[in-house]
């Protein structure tokens, strides 16, 4: 632990936000055990980086670590699953190319709109859209916090949220009647 002035201790950052950290990890990696590993690894990483934490939003700081660790985990799993991919891809591309086990968002919402289908549809979103929507709707974070966590400008957060929501509302042509 670094010496503390007015700053919260690492424990004060982590413990109150453990549910949020796990929820994000769970939605990103879509696997309970892997999500636990991600949170544990995030705590280890956080301990290493905490000395360089210079104030700001502690929750966003932690969630950013969780988010990055989750992507590392997904990329590692991808590599383990098919380590003979001829294409040279960046880590981000690999993550975005993770095949989704669930139905596609449109199909998932075409039937009864119950929570289970909504969950499936959310799980089927591309990760960069899914994380924005989870952080906004489930964690109720601001655009600014989401931008901080995902490392993109606020404008990108807004357009990702819009795309994510359009996909979830998509099936019945909702949002599609506009000519955008």
């Amino acid at each position: 632990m670094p010496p503390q002035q007015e700053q919260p201790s690492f424990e004060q950052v982590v413990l109150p936000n453990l549910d949020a950290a796990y929820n994000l990890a769970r939605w990103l990696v879509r696997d309970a055990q892997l999500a636990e590993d991600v949170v544990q690894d995030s705590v280890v990483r956080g301990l290493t980086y905490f000395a360089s934490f210079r104030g700001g939003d502690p929750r966003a700081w932690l969630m950013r670590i969780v988010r990055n660790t989750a992507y590392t985990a997904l990329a590692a799993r991808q590599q383990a699953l098919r380590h003979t991919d001829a294409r040279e891809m960046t880590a981000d591309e690999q993550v975005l190319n993770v095949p989704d086990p669930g139905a596609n968002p449109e199909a998932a919402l075409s039937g009864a709109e119950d929570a289970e289908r909504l969950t499936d549809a959310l799980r089927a979103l591309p990760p960069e859209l899914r994380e924005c929507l989870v952080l906004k709707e489930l964690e109720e974070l601001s655009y600014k916090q989401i931008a901080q966590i995902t490392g993109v400008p606020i404008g990108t957060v807004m357009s990702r949220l819009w795309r994510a929501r359009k996909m979830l509302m998509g099936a019945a042509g909702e949002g599609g009647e506009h000519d955008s």
Partner: protein
Amino acid sequence: MIPDNCASMHLLIQADVDGELEPAEAARVAAHLEICPSCARLQQRLLSLSSRMHGLPRHRAPELLREAVRTRLAKEAAGKGGGGRWRRAALGAAGVALAASLAASLMLFALLPRGDAMPDWIVAAHIRALQPDHLMDVASSEQHTVKPWFAGRLPFSPPVKDLTQAGFPLIGGRLDYLPGHTAGTLVYKRREHIIDLFIWPAGDEAFVSGSGARDGYNFVRWKAGGMVFWAVSDLNAGELEEFAALWR
């Protein structure tokens, strides 16, 4: 009147639903919705999606994970970070891959020895309790105060003994949460050493009485009267055994 270009309104309508607009912008959105039924419908759909999503269950951190993190933090606080017994329940293949990739980059990883993790939990709970203000929920040297304190806080009644005569004064009690168990914990003293005695009802699981040491703390465990007992302290093993013998 030609409405504002609808496509350009979408992100504003969304931002309005998300509560991110300044009053002036929100008023502009409201004015547009007045005259544009299709955007008004869009707003309704966004609101409805939002409220349906708020109904989704939020994944809560499992108790084991919470405890593992607390243990890790306690070890860190005790200056034992880095090389600790970082408990990792049943690693799947994906977990192993993750562990390997992170270990390479972090050099911080330590896999747990397999087998009984309870001594680690117990010692971690003891160390945690030694942090300021964590030692006792009820401070009393009086067993007739401590015992009723547990009633209503625990689904069982832990036995309480006063061992002052034998040189182990009772100083209080508290509750501890260990994986799978809520323990009633009695706090004793021997000179300047704190002894925690964790007590919970014995279950069906295999239990081995015995003693051992972890990170410089000694522990003795035994089973009696349908209860499981764990005594842990930085007291020397001999005197801790003496304490346990008085209890057994």
